[in-house]
């Protein structure tokens, strides 16, 4: 064995990593949480979205009362997003019943709908969706928009040049956002949460038990110590991503338009950066309880300001600056870009560079802040 290879084999880091895995294997509870949390979270989100979105109680105001208008109602029903609950006689009734919550959507077909179709003019109809809860409304809105196109095609095939324009009007919440938009974000949020807390607790636990003191007197370097915590948890991060992607895909048909390989690649600096935050927290606190508290304190701005829940564009300046200082903000763009839009590294290189920067700076700071003394 050459000298360099021999030195490499004797790195204390290997033992750290091995030890961490043995401990993880014994810590069934943590292990179960690592896989259980993402599964439960995505299932909760996913099912809530699905049951709400499908079967919205829908009002029909059919002022046309023709074969064409009834065909449009059937098309709407066939999307599965709308359940016809009753026919109403006036727009005022629609307003009342949606405001009271009795109905969540309405289809309004004006009197001249069939006449316009017959004269090969554009026929108009309106779908109203209660968008107070944007999660439930988004799919209904897109489905409502689509039936216009579908019906147009059907009619065009039969009669020639007719077209139907369905105007979808989301009520109460015009700045609405789509459900699929949220789901990829969950990967980022869960990763930030678990990685930060797991890393901080792992170091603080060693300090509390006195094993850190023992490690400090061994030849292991500060970097070795920190890396011994980063590498094993990196693997847990990837397991979590995989679990969320699989559950999202199998149960809720979350699209994966782009390359999974590139997603896993850009996830690396994000996970490392999150672990870096956890290690920094561990240097600042004295107990596991404090580490948990600081961890949750860190999660809150991540959920609120990263663009996970609310669009950053609508935020006041200072909130945007805080958001810009969070790795999750960039990782969300990456996730949504790859999963929903099929973007690749060439589109997302700016975000990737920022994430690599975060990971290097945060872990570097953590190593610097960690002293091989116990004062």
């Amino acid at each position: 064995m050459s000298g360099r290879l021999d030195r490499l084999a004797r790195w204390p880091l290997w033992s750290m990593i091995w030890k961490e895995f043995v401990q993880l294997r014994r810590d069934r509870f943590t292990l179960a949480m690592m896989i259980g949390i993402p599964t439960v979270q995505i299932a909760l989100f996913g099912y809530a979205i699905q049951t709400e979105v499908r079967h919205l109680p829908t009002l029909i105001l059919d002022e046309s009362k023709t074969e064409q208008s009834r065909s449009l109602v059937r098309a709407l029903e066939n999307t599965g997003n709308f359940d016809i609950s009753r026919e109403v006689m006036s727009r005022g009734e629609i307003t009342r019943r949606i405001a009271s919550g009795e109905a969540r959507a309405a289809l309004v077909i004006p009197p001249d709908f069939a006449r316009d179709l017959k004269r090969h003019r554009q026929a108009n109809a309106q779908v109203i969706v209660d968008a107070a809860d944007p999660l439930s409304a988004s799919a209904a809105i897109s489905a409502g928009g689509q039936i216009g196109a579908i019906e147009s095609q059907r009619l065009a095939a039969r009669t020639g040049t007719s077209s139907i324009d369905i105007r979808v009007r989301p009520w109460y919440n015009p700045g609405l956002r789509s459900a699929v938009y949220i789901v990829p974000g969950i990967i980022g949020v869960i990763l930030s949460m678990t990685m930060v807390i797991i890393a901080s607790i792992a170091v603080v636990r060693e300090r509390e038990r006195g094993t850190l003191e023992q490690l400090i007197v061994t030849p292991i370097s500060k970097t070795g110590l920190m890396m011994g915590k980063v590498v094993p948890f990196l693997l847990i991060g990837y397991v979590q991503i995989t679990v969320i992607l699989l559950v999202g895909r199998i149960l809720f048909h979350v699209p994966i338009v782009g390359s999974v390989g590139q997603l896993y690649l850009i996830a690396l600096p994000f996970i490392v950066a999150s672990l870096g935050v956890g290690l920094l927290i561990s240097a600042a606190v004295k107990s596991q309880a404090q580490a948990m508290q600081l961890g949750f304190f860190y999660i809150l701005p991540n959920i609120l300001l990263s663009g996970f829940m609310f669009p950053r564009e609508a935020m006041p300046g200072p909130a945007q600056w805080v958001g810009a200082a969070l790795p999750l903000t960039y990782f969300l763009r990456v996730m949504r870009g790859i999963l929903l839009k099929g973007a690749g590294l060439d589109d997302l290189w700016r975000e990737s560079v920022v994430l690599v920067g975060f990971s290097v700076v945060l872990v570097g700071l953590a190593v610097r802040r960690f002293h091989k003394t116990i004062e």
Partner: protein
Amino acid sequence: MTAAADQFGIVTKGLSKSFGAIAAVVDLDLEVRRGEVFGLLGPNGSGKTTTIRMLTGLVRPTSGQAIVAGIDVVTAPERVRQRIGYMSQRFGFYEDLTIEENIRFYGGVYGLIGRERTERIAEQFTRYRLGDRSRQLAGTLSGGWKQRLALACATVHRPDLVFLDEPTAGVDPASRRLFWEMIREHADLGMTIIVTTHYMDEAERCGRLAFLSRGHLIGVGTPKEITTRFGLPTIEDVFIELQRRDEADANATA
């Protein structure tokens, strides 16, 4: 300064440590020779643990010099690590690892690999009478076993010096006796042992003793020299006398 002390022992000069306004150790001059079992004695808060922590590089001295195994601990704490072993009051092993895994882990951290490590683990098992419990989780061991495992972990890399900070606190008398027999064996093989203790029977087993009182070194010598100097029949009497003085001083300054 002898050559032996230079390479395998300890020399400190004016070693001091303050935590804010509190002086934990003041101007400590010590010399420990190779193969000695050297006891640090003193009441709680006298600076024993701080002294050991300075000598192991866990705490940076405020001023003064400390040469351990020929290496300056203040300027090059990393270089001394491979040469020393340390066992704290809290036993620094992992309760959720087995006995065997703990020794394997510390062996690896000290750079042992392959057959060398396997042989060393077996050696530690025999030497520390860890017998047939290799697969038992360390957290489920009794006090005496925990203590022997901690020592096995601290010496897996065959250090020249071993620091023991109250190693027998909360351990039954039979285990304490066994432990001291092992310490004796180590010293006979040329290992230098620095140990702090509260137990007077243990103090009597040390080759030489250093008495600390409120951060100051009060006396160094064999147990016999110490008792003679204080004109008291036993080490225990000396200890109680010192503690009484400490309390009187504390009351005077308060």
